[in-house]
């Protein structure tokens, strides 16, 4: 089996600050994802990447940047943190563009903006 490691687990930022979340996977999966989890809104896709150096926007990409410099890692940047923002960001990976493939998740990074 494999594991997805997200760092940091907790992130406290200030309004307007640029914040970076990191994700590593050892499944050797091609596709990686960043989801945002908000109560009552489900998991919303921010960015995904189907291979190294590929980036595809999800429904919630505004206000975020992403980077996939290696197959095993995928980082997400909040370009300007919004005051009182609180959310959990989940990194995930899967084999590839197959409709029935299982998606594996990390434990999340909890962001609080003060």
């Amino acid at each position, binding site marked *: 089996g494999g594991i997805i490691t997200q760092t940091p687990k907790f992130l406290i930022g200030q309004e307007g600050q640029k914040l970076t979340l990191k994700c590593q996977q050892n499944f050797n999966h091609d*596709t990686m994802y960043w989801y945002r989890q908000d109560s009552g809104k*489900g998991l919303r896709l921010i960015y995904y990447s189907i291979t190294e150096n590929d980036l595809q926007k999800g429904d919630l990409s505004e206000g975020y940047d992403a980077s996939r410099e290696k197959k095993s890692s995928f980082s997400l940047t909040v370009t300007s943190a919004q005051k009182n923002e609180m959310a959990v960001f989940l990194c995930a990976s899967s084999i590839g*563009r197959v*409709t029935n493939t*299982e*998606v594996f998740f990390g434990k999340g990074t909890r962001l609080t903006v003060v």
Partner: protein
Amino acid sequence: GDSVTQKEGLVTLTEGLPVMLNCTYQTIYSNAFLFWYVHYLNESPRLLLKSSTDNKRTEHQGFHATLHKSSSSFHLQKSSAQLSDSALYYCALSDHYNQGKLIFGQGTKLSIKP
């Protein structure tokens, strides 16, 4: 576009009673896959069960669901709730158009009381 609807944000049940979490979906593609993911507190979301076969019951860890394409539904059921079933449950959809990306519903928090 594709969408998944979970109307109940919170379901509270007494231990031992049956569980039913509703999920309906919209897609124009006939080969859609439907998934249930479970997210326990302080853990990673993980796959509970999945199906693409019409009218076939799928079971895992005491839970079951049947995909009904005629009504676009994939409700999650369990005959007897346990305290340990308390978690956040997400229904999700994947199809050829989305190239394996998951579209999640809003999530249902299941709270089981003694």
